């Protein structure tokens, strides 16, 4: 089973919301990542058949879907808002897609209960949506989507309106549920971390353009361009101009990075270097680390992490540190950069060298 976009362009009132998107999604989980207004919802609406492409074709298993109406397509969708029928109980909400399909009463009852148990609302079947918490309402909406064995399951940032504890819980459950499905699952999100936790394949979207597709983890480690690096990093990748000459990379402000590991193959010339915030540190981690003199601009404490914004020769970097660092502002600080973690992009912003991955997961 696959879903193909063939040079799809979507114009809304004269403004393009999607430019010549051309990609194929297979069964299993596909994450759609991009900042707000990237065109994620436009893409989902085209997939669902709620909108028609201005140019290009949307194919399911090679069949053009242009003249198949929405209700004839076997699609289910979950939204940011918790969408349920307000006057139906949880049971009737979950049963509604099945009743429409004209399935027998006993079969409906069995599937409703199964699905409700799957998303852990088996004991809430008699309640009305208004009597549920946000998390339970979204579970009900998910159950409505999951109950009907759709070929195409679409999730439009389903967790943004929930608190983070619930998000983690639901995310883990969804990952398991998706793994057992035959359907093509498309999950839109703005968050790189969410994409990585869900895994699967990824479509990176920015300003209406599909920038890169591929397995989620490998796209994360090999962002084809600066822009992918930016979109697929939170906080966005730190960038700095530099020149490779005489066996070293000279970055703005007199930083000299030795060309070791993956950087050793760089030829002389101008580059854009990119560094993820979690690879910058205010403590020296290894002997390869290069110290950079900077000034603290802002320290944001976020849970158990601190995002330290530092200024260095007119550019601003973000350093992500585990733990809480109450730092004074405008103070000099040393930031450590390890050349092994630096991405190198050429003058057109395309990837030239990516850090080699170590065996363990996300730190590569």
């Amino acid at each position: 089973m696959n879903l193909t976009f063939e040079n799809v362009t979507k114009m809304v009132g004269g403004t393009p919301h999607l430019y010549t998107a051309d990609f194929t999604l297979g069964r299993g989980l596909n994450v759609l990542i991009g900042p707000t207004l990237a065109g994620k919802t436009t893409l989902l609406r085209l997939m669902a058949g709620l909108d028609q492409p201005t140019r290009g074709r949307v194919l399911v298993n090679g069949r053009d879907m242009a003249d198949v109406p929405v209700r004839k397509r076997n699609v289910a969708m979950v939204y940011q808002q918790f969408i349920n029928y307000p006057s139906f109980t949880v049971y009737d909400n979950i049963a509604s897609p099945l009743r429409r399909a004209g399935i027998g009463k006993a079969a409906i009852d069995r599937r409703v209960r199964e699905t409700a148990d799957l998303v852990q609302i088996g004991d809430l079947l008699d309640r009305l949506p208004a009597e549920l918490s946000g998390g339970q309402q979204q579970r009900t909406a998910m159950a409505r989507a999951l109950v009907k064995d759709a070929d195409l399951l679409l999730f439009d940032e389903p967790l943004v309106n929930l608190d983070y504890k619930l998000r983690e819980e639901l995310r883990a459950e969804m990952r398991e549920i998706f793994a057992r499905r035959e359907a093509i699952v498309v999950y839109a999100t703005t968050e790189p971390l969410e994409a990585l936790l869900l895994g699967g394949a990824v479509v990176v979207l920015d300003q209406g353009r599909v920038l890169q597709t591929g397995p989620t983890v490998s796209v994360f480690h090999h962002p084809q361009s600066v822009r992918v690096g930016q979109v697929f990093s939170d906080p966005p990748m730190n960038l700095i101009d530099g020149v490779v000459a005489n066996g070293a990379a000279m970055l703005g402000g007199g930083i000299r990075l030795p060309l070791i590991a993956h950087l050793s193959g760089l030829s002389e010339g101008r580059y854009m270097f990119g560094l993820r915030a979690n690879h910058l540190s205010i403590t020296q981690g290894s002997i390869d680390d290069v110290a950079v003199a900077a000034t603290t601009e802002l320290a944001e404490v976020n849970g158990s992490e601190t995002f330290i914004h530092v200024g260095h020769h007119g550019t601003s970097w973000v350093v992500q540190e585990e733990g809480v660092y109450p730092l004074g502002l405008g103070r000099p600080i040393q930031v450590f950069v390890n050349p092994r973690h630096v991405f190198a992009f050429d003058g057109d912003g395309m990837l030239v060298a990516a850090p080699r991955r170590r065996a363990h997961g996300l730190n590569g």
Partner: protein
Amino acid sequence: MEKTKDNRAWFLVIPVFVIVAFSAIIPLMTVVNYSVQDIFGPNERFFVGVEWFKEILHDERLHEALLRQFLFSGLVLLIEIPLGVAIALAMPKKGWAASLSLVLLALPLLIPWNVIGTIWIIFTRPDIGLLGATINGLGIDFDHTAAPLDAWITVMLMEVWHWTPLVVLLAYAGLQAIPDAFYQAASIDGASRWAVFRYIQLPKMRGVLTIAILLRFMDSFLIYAEPFVLTGGGPGNATTFLSIHLVKIAVGQFDLGPAAAFSIIYFLIVLLFSWLFYQALQNVGKGE
């Protein structure tokens, strides 16, 4: 935290107490005062107990007015609520057309009540009125000053024209508050237009429609100025609603005692029915 007791805090309540006293308690008690006494002059008054209440409750004309009033309010709700919802559903959702239709709809609500009556007197005059002359020109004999049915039709028309926009505005606000995702979900489910209305729009409008029904009931039950100006309660007593009857007793005949007793009963009826409507509407939709 430890609670401290300071009696001076009562001073802070005084302004509210004074305002409520002058706006509600004192006028109400004045009416109660009148309703239990027979007053002949400044120093001549007799306590009569519930005598006026008994008299009022057995008043034939009051019974008729009350019946007329229920019929009128019932018709108002039956016509204005569905009509208001239908218009709200048909209105443009956004853009300049939405703003324009909102402004046009709100116009009747901005006209002073007594002017409304005057407008409709002229509008329905058989000789020069746009509506009256047209209808009579079609060969239909229509005159609200002569025929009771014509008077009713005219008063209803005026009321519907004047107040349906309020229902529309409330329903429209309720509809606008429904996220677009509901409609998308409905079209993915393959829901019909009727199902969208019945299972999404109507339940989502329950809150605003409760308010609309309460407001329209109370307001139409208390109607006075428009029919007073238009028909003066006539022809005969055909459009003598409760408040018109009340004013006839109080101002026309200067029977302050019965009028006061009447006012209290009137007030209690409105209160009772508003409460009943509220309770009923709270349960509708919840129990489905």
